[in-house]
């Protein structure tokens, strides 16, 4: 409507305009990239774990002394745990999903060649209750049977199980769209196992791993003296069962130490802590930045209003309505913001490019700067509204006042 005269008035105050424009540009560059990082982390933290994380308790027992009998201890423990009211299923296993520690190895669909291209997968040794106890969803095939569970007395061994259950992610990577069920896979020593089941999803040990859902269940009892149990409870009974499990395990066998009994969410939180921290830090920086920029706009606009009191009164005297005055400031702000975000878009992509090349973060998606532009437009209009309304309240009679 009246861009040109507003623009030419702005250009007479180049420095002030440039400062706020640069501020808006920097804000866009930072906010777009920070929100992009936040969204990625939030998405990562929100990934379904595949297991029934909310109702799972994990416990660790460490046997010691000459009287410790590993197999016997595990058998008694799982029987005892399964008998606790409120417990749905229990499996002995070798590691805790998403805990940051675990076992992984490479597998191929042909016996390994000198230069194999294996599919790397996390491995969990579970018993015949493994699928139930973890709460993973079996979409093809069957769970393990008691007879399949392997055990080798020698703690250092390179055994492979006769049958395995894999996640869809592993099936997809190894067999493409073809069927996985019933097919053999090979470890790096050339030993083979048959795929007897496919589960929908399960996150492995490392949440930051680039193939987090590459997980394989093997029917084995892990060697001592460390053993872990996954105890799946009825919904809502988890917290109440943690102390009970700890007490019963501790009392049942004096040849071992119960290292800890914890809900699975303990590890989930720990593993995502760096990401949660980043989200928290970035959210604070983004909010403060938006706040400071908004206050800067309010401050400068207020200042302009007070400097231009006479001018505004004159405009009112020669026929400007209140809404015309408000509109003047809104348009002025919109022009300023538009200039700022134009520069800001360039800065945002440059900064995004630098971040992705220096810290090997993913490349900034254009959606974020574009959303940032809209945000800053709206923010600017809201911020300028208060001083603009004050400007509109300046009485036209100011114009006849000398000095």
């Amino acid at each position, binding site marked *: 409507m009246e861009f040109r005269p507003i623009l030419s008035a702005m250009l007479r105050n180049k*420095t002030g305009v440039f*400062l706020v424009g640069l501020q808006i540009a920097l804000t866009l560059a930072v906010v777009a990239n920070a929100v992009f990082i936040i969204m990625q982390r939030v998405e990562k933290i929100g990934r379904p774990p595949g297991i029934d994380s909310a109702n799972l308790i994990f416990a660790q027992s*460490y046997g*010691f002394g000459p009287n410790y009998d590993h197999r016997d201890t595990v058998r008694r423990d799982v029987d005892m745990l399964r008998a606790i009211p409120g417990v749905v299923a229990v499996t002995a296993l070798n590691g805790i999903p998403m805990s940051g520690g675990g076992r992984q190895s490479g597998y191929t669909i042909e016996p390994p060649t000198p*230069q194999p291209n294996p599919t790397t997968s996390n491995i969990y040794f579970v018993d015949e209750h493994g699928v139930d106890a973890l709460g993973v969803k079996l979409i093809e095939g069957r769970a393990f049977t008691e007879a399949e569970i392997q055990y080798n007395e020698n703690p250092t061994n390179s055994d492979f199980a006769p049958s395995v259950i894999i996640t869809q992610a592993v099936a997809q990577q190894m067999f493409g769209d073809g069927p996985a069920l019933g097919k053999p896979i090979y470890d790096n020593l050339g030993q083979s196992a048959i795929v007897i089941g496919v589960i929908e999803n399960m996150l492995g040990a490392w949440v930051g791993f680039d193939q987090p859902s590459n997980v394989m269940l093997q029917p084995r009892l892990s060697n001592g003296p460390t053993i872990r149990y996954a105890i799946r409870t009825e919904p809502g009974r988890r917290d109440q069962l943690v102390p009970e499990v700890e007490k019963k395990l501790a009392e049942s066998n004096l040849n071992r130490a119960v290292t800890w009994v914890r809900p699975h969410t303990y590890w989930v939180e720990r593993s995502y802590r760096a990401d949660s921290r980043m989200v928290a830090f970035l959210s*604070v920086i983004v909010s403060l930045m938006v706040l400071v920029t908004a206050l800067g706009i309010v401050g400068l606009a207020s*200042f302009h209003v007070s400097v231009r009191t006479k001018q505004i009164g004159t405009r009112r005297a020669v026929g400007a309505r209140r809404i015309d005055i408000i509109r003047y400031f809104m348009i002025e702000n919109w022009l300023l913001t538009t200039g700022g975000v134009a520069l800001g878009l360039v800065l945002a992509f440059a900064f995004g490019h630098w971040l992705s090349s220096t810290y090997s973060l993913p490349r900034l998606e254009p959606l974020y700067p574009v959303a940032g532009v809209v945000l800053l437009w709206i923010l600017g209009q809201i911020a300028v509204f208060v001083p603009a309304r004050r400007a509109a309240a300046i009485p036209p009679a100011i114009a006849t006042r000398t000095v």
Partner: protein
Amino acid sequence: MFNYYVRLALKSLRRTPVVAALMIGAIALGVGVCITTLTVYRLMSGNPIEHRNDVLRAVTLDNWDPNQPWDDRRPELPPYELTYRDAMALFESDIPSRQVMMRKGPFVVESDPALGVKPFLVEARLTTKDFFSIFDVPFEYGGGWDAAADQGAQRVVVLSKETNDKIFGGQDSVGKNVRLDGKDYNVIGVLAEWTPTPKFYDLNNGSFDGIEEAFVPFNIGQIDQVQPGGNVNCWRTQPLNSFQDFLESDCVWIQYWVELKGRDKVEAYQSFIDSYVQEQKKLGRFERPLNNKLRTPEEWLEINRVVASDNSVLVGLSFMFLAVCLLNMIGLLLAKFLGSAPLVGLRRALGATRQTIFNQHLVEVGVIGIAGGVLGIGLAGLGLLGVRQLYENYDTLTRLDVTMSLTALVIAIASGVLAGLYPTWRVCRVQPAAYLKTQ
């Protein structure tokens, strides 16, 4: 004159309280955020063994897969740890004045039932004797063990302060016994509080975890077949069907440090490990190109990227935030100063020189900077309080110390004055005549 300027500055700030609050608030926020992230960064990037940087070296040998480097993204790096057999071979050398090979392992600790402490699992460090001396480990009671204990795998143990508190209530326990995995060990030393952050001597098994809870002679690990407690990485296709298989394998899991006093020693040791690897190549091992590295603690921290990229990104973003705050302040200050141009014109007419106007406004900027800095320190303190919620176990390390407080003040005043220079310069150029005419 200075006092007069300060009085003028305060008066000027009081005249426009909102603008003054916005400016001071902007600097304070910018500084507060920067100091918070810098403190975290400094915590993450500290080198706790800086004073021994010139004599300590982490030893790495490249025994990895001929078809694939240890780290795909940085193929020039050898593995971080050594195989057991190579560590044992290097330990024969007498070039280092002191040296240590070590690893982690779990033990269940039992104490005298009379003490009423339930058996509990600890992460122990299995290490040779020089660990305590080359890393300047402080002792509360007793001390480390001697070469004979290393040789004979004597059952002696050094407890961390925490473990000693737990079992013995902080008493001097030297000479007493504890049971580790069912065997009696004689306590020969108790550490004082020691929190190297990051845990430089073993960066691949929880670099920000606390130290191990107990320390025992390295050779006990082999005799009792103590399972490795840290990362084990293997590449060679070889069946491992006994602990002996494992010890002889190409799996890496041993950390190795040497003390080399002087350049000659470093060079001599480098050629020693190189010729060792050349010998091994003849036996069909070490198929990759010769790539043996000795790293100072500082290099070691850098290579292991202890400072997560997240922290660097945060520091970068914080400073961009500070820039935005400063731009904000420059804009407001410029508006404010130019708004008072008629007054400046009057002062000039009454005989003020450009220099005096400059000084007067610079003092005002300085006052804003100091106020912003002081408030910024307060905000940083608040920020770190929040950070402490995010970083469990780092209480002592996320406190705002004198250095950071001073840094905050310096950043605030420097950036405030820097930001104020342009508006100050502009206001100095006010022509006395321009504002004295009736409008």
